[in-house]
């Protein structure tokens, strides 16, 4: 490699090309999201016009062919099953990351990490079928069955990403803590976890996104009855299950009403991401 001016200028040109390629790719990713939202809004508009937003919140229940359009039980269902799964999977996921990184001997840690990666790759329809055959006979098709299956599905997301962010903490922190004579648990609790906090929060946000968007497994184990869940053993229907169950045979008005569930889901996800970002910003300031 020589360092003639010509080379430097061509480096600049390469940089510019790279810059514009990256800008283009970023624009594509952004535009796709915008286009999907526009599509959802356009498809929902006929229903929102003829039925009105309020009836989606206040009708007696959801029987679109009998002119009842309340979606709130399904919003509650989606939120309940997601919340339950996160509450179960977060401690398990972080625990598994800590085990892998600080407690397990190297060969066991590598083997265990491999297993978790396989868990991440199992298709959701397999989880659903397994849930239907193994869990449902024990807990019936219910909110609880959905929570258990979803918790398993999002566990690898939290475990793998939390471990990655723990690994990204500068090694000096670990040595410093050791030099101070801290026990391993004190080092993890006082030094490593706080330093890796934003990465761990991100892993939980991604897990929430996967849980709330999951469809196939949830359709198979949750029972899909439209009602506000009054116990863990009550069947529920999520917004995604609603679309999957009814879309393929829906007439025009019904179809448009189903797109309102999609729009609502999108809205909830945006809200969750905003809240999560706010939390992680707050915790950075603290």
């Amino acid at each position, binding site marked *: 490699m020589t360092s003639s001016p010509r080379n430097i200028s061509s480096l600049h040109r390469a940089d510019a090309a790279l810059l514009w390629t990256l800008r283009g790719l970023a624009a594509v990713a952004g535009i796709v999201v915008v286009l999907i939202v526009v599509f959802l809004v356009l498809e929902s508009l006929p229903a929102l016009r003829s039925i009105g937003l309020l009836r989606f919140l206040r009708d007696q229940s959801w029987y679109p062919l009998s002119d009842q359009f309340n979606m709130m039980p399904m919003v509650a269902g989606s939120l309940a099953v997601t919340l339950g799964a996160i509450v179960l999977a977060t401690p398990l996921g972080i625990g598994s990351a800590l085990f892998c990184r600080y407690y397990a001997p190297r060969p066991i840690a590598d083997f265990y990490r491999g297993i978790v990666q396989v868990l991440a790759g199992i298709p959701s329809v397999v989880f659903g079928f397994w849930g239907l055959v193994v869990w449902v006979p024990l807990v019936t*098709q219910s909110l609880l069955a959905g929570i258990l299956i979803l918790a398993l599905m999002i566990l690898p997301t939290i475990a793998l990403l939390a471990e990655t962010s723990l690994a990204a903490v500068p090694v000096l922190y670990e040595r410093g803590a050791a030099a101070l004579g801290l026990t391993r648990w004190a080092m993890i609790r006082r030094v490593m976890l706080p330093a890796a906090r934003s990465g761990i929060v991100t892993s939980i946000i991604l897990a929430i996104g996967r849980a709330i968007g999951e469809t196939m497994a949830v359709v198979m184990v949750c029972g899909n009855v439209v009602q506000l869940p009054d116990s863990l053993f009550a*069947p529920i229907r999520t917004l995604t299950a609603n679309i999957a169950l009814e879309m393929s045979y829906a007439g025009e008005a019904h179809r448009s009403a189903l797109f309102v569930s999609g729009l609502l889901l999108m809205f909830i996800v945006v809200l969750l991401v905003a809240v999560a970002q706010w939390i992680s910003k707050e915790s950075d300031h603290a």
Partner: protein
Amino acid sequence: MHPLRFITALFVSLLATITLTACGGGGGSANDGGLSGKLVITGSSTCAPVISEAAKRFEQLHPGVRIDVQTGGSGRGIADVGKGTAQIGMASRALKDAEKQTLSAHPFASDGVCIILHKSNPVTELTSEQIVAFYTGQTTNWKDVGGKDAAITVVNKAEGRATLEVFLEFFKLKNPDIKPAVIVGENEHAIKTVVGDVNAIGYVSIGTAEYSAGSGTAIKLLPAGGIPATTKALADGKFPISRPLILVTKPQTNPLTKAFIDYCQSKEIHDLIASQYFVPASR
């Protein structure tokens, strides 16, 4: 299952488009029998999967023919033929007397629904009143109909499904009055649910149920009004929980319309009818 089916449908239609374009270029005149022109078919989404596949085959046999199949419910199909915006309507019910005055019906298949229980359930027959009582939540325990002392798990179908419509119509029920414990989509999903719950009651297309029970799945098919639930009884027109799938036209039809209707009533599409778990209409 849905996305998969959608992707398959997309792929098949893409493939069909490509093949058709290729045929058009080659001017395949070997087999067209002089038929050409365009047909518009609208109506029932229950019939559409069979008819649109039949239409693709028909187009391949007769390269000069273009057939456009749209869904929108039986009502739309019948109305469109009346208005003349479609040459053929698809309907998943018999014509009403008033409609018979101006239109003619051409049945091509029957769709039947039967009640299924877990194979180990000791109950072997239920009356219509008992089934209605189950589904409306008036009877909630199997011991009330001579079964075990166990709560009944009522399995219902999601709105828009053809099986749900047949079921509601036969038992004179309204969907909001049903108190289900589980709501399912596909027939397969209903069967898996009943297999996984010994106290469940559900209903599915007879064809699917017969196939599953025949291949060793732990379900049993209940007779209706003393008639055993078999595709044979359905084909003979004896099984009561059923409805005809028909094509609707004006009494006077042009040769192309007539040729397509004959094709849909021929053995050529029996495999398509079977693939949707319907049975061919007896002629």
